[in-house]
């Protein structure tokens, strides 16, 4: 457990250092606010049943924004604010889940690959290569076609295509460690490889993987919504998803722009704030970039 708390303490220190930069402050607050809004979304939505897409009233369709429906209603007469809040829940929960599961998986597999015997190492490294080369949208499509849709195939496909990136980072970091004495001597003591991975390699690899994972939050949001945007109508239209909402709303963009503008705006805000947050953190973690530099020659 100490390794995790230490990594978290490092991360807090990093965040405190990055806090001095105004762009980070804005992005961090926005990302935090949107995440909290997303997590609470289903509880604060004014019309939960319309948000879920269960309640459809055609008389109310395509109403412009009003006091009753602050962001208007969509083509099926559902309150867009509720839809956006439910969609935000999906986006944040799936993103956090994908990032945490795939970074943990990548961390473990990558560190293990560096210390296992050569054949096992080769197999693990090329397994990562294999999953990197499979586009997530096609994998998601296959899983959706096989299981009939929903959130699970999407999450599984995203995890399957994201973990090898962290596996690579962990592997390159761990490979530099394996020649060092504090990794080699316990081997001679007869300690198991699993113990060494857990005790001596993971603690040194966890920080870079964590920073990498946090800087990818924005990309995961984008990739997830891109997939649902492509699937669009072939997904169930009742599912509240920001990508699907933008995709289905596109045809109303000239006549009823609010149908597509608010989900697009929320999605863009979420993605941009996550990206800026991750990028500044990544930059703070790289000592070379922290230095003020001018061209002296």
């Amino acid at each position, binding site marked *: 457990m100490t390794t995790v708390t230490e990594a978290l303490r490092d991360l807090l220190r990093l965040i405190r250092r990055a806090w001095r930069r105004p762009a980070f402050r804005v992005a961090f607050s926005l990302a935090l606010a949107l995440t909290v809004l997303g997590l609470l979304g289903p509880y604060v939505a004014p019309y939960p049943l319309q948000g879920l897409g269960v309640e459809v009233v055609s008389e109310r369709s395509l109403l412009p924004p009003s006091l009753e429906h602050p962001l208007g209603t969509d083509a099926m007469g559902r309150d867009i604010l509720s839809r956006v809040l439910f969609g935000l829940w999906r986006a944040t929960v799936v993103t956090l889940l994908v990032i945490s599961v795939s970074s943990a998986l990548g961390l473990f597999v990558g560190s293990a690959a560096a210390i296992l015997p050569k054949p096992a190492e080769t197999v693990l490294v090329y397994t990562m290569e294999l999953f990197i080369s499979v586009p997530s949208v096609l994998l998601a*499509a*296959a899983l959706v076609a096989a299981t009939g849709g929903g959130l699970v195939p999407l999450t599984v496909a995203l995890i399957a295509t994201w973990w090898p990136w962290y596996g690579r980072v962990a592997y390159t970091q761990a490979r530099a460690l394996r020649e060092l004495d504090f990794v080699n001597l316990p081997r001679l003591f007869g300690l198991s490889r699993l113990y060494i991975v857990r005790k001596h390699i993971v603690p040194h690899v966890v920080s870079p993987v964590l920073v990498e994972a946090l800087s990818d939050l924005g990309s995961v949001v984008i990739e997830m919504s891109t997939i649902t945007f492509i699937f669009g109508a072939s997904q169930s239209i009742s599912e509240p998803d920001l990508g699907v909402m933008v995709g289905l709303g596109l045809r109303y*963009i000239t006549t009823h722009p609010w149908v597509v503008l608010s989900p697009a705006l929320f999605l863009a805000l979420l993605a*941009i704030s996550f990206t800026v947050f991750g990028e500044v953190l990544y930059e703070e973690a790289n000592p070379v970039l922290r230095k003020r530099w001018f061209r002296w020659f």
Partner: protein
Amino acid sequence: MLTLNYIVRRSALSLALIVGVLLLSFVLTYYAPGDPALTWAGRPRGPGALEAVERARQELGLDKPLWYQLSAYLQRFLSGDWGISVKFKTPVLGLVVRGFAASLELVAYSFLIAVPLGYLLGISAALSRGGLRDRVIYYLSVAISGTPRFITAAAAYVSLYVLSQALGTPVIYGRVSSELRVGFTEITGAITVDSLIQGRLDVLADSLLRIIPPALVLSTYPMGVLARVVRLAVAETLEEEYVRQAVSLGIPADAVLKRYVAPGVVPVVTQLSGLFFSYSLVEAMAVEGVFGREGLGYLLVKALESSDYPLIVGSIVLVSAVFVVANTVADVVQAKVNPRVVV
């Protein structure tokens, strides 16, 4: 050192990876929940459904032992028999190759735009690090690459639509205008290449005009990320002793940048561009949809509508295999450029 040994070993490994891709698709086919034959046949309903499922069962060889199924599956795919699409009723291989060529064309054009621009922006940002230009390039690249591409694409499409309505010019939609399409035969599936082969300059001009806006939209992601990574790589290279040494020897600044700094960054650019491919392809499918271009995205939407499992599995196999081959070639090229990467 680039040796024959390295090339042979790398090729053998990539062949193993392609077999791995096939195994993955086998697992996807056979261990999908429910009856694989039902899924393979596209969940048919109505009269003839039983017959279709029975045919799928024979095609998949579900009554044979597992090792036999596996070897039959590998043999079938390696000999080019990828099954029949449920939706289009034609062999999957041809469909997927054509769709993939169309998407690849878009991705290739977007990279043609993104790589030089991202490279130049990254270098220019790194040379004034902490300054105003650096900050502008940095935050602009983060904001642009942080916006989902399909939103940028929708905005670009709508503004182009409004513009063309105002000017009275035809709307940019699809891959080539329908009048020009008549009598035009596709060879590779990439229209800009085909028209050049056949010497049809009118088709080339039309298709280029239609590919540039989506390619520009698509290029924002690789461009933004490349600019940031090149900025980091150049910043690190500028700290190196050999750069300091070169400067102290009195070598002109331009030559230092061109001969000492840039070569260290080129491998980063090539490697990263290779890795972006898979991600860019996902976004290309979405952008294609917005601009009405037929490609993998269009195929996928149609396939999902009628649960066309053979088509989806076929596209996974083709795209992943091409990606593996491309990565192998990139690795070999990189081994030639930068001998340190060969372990």
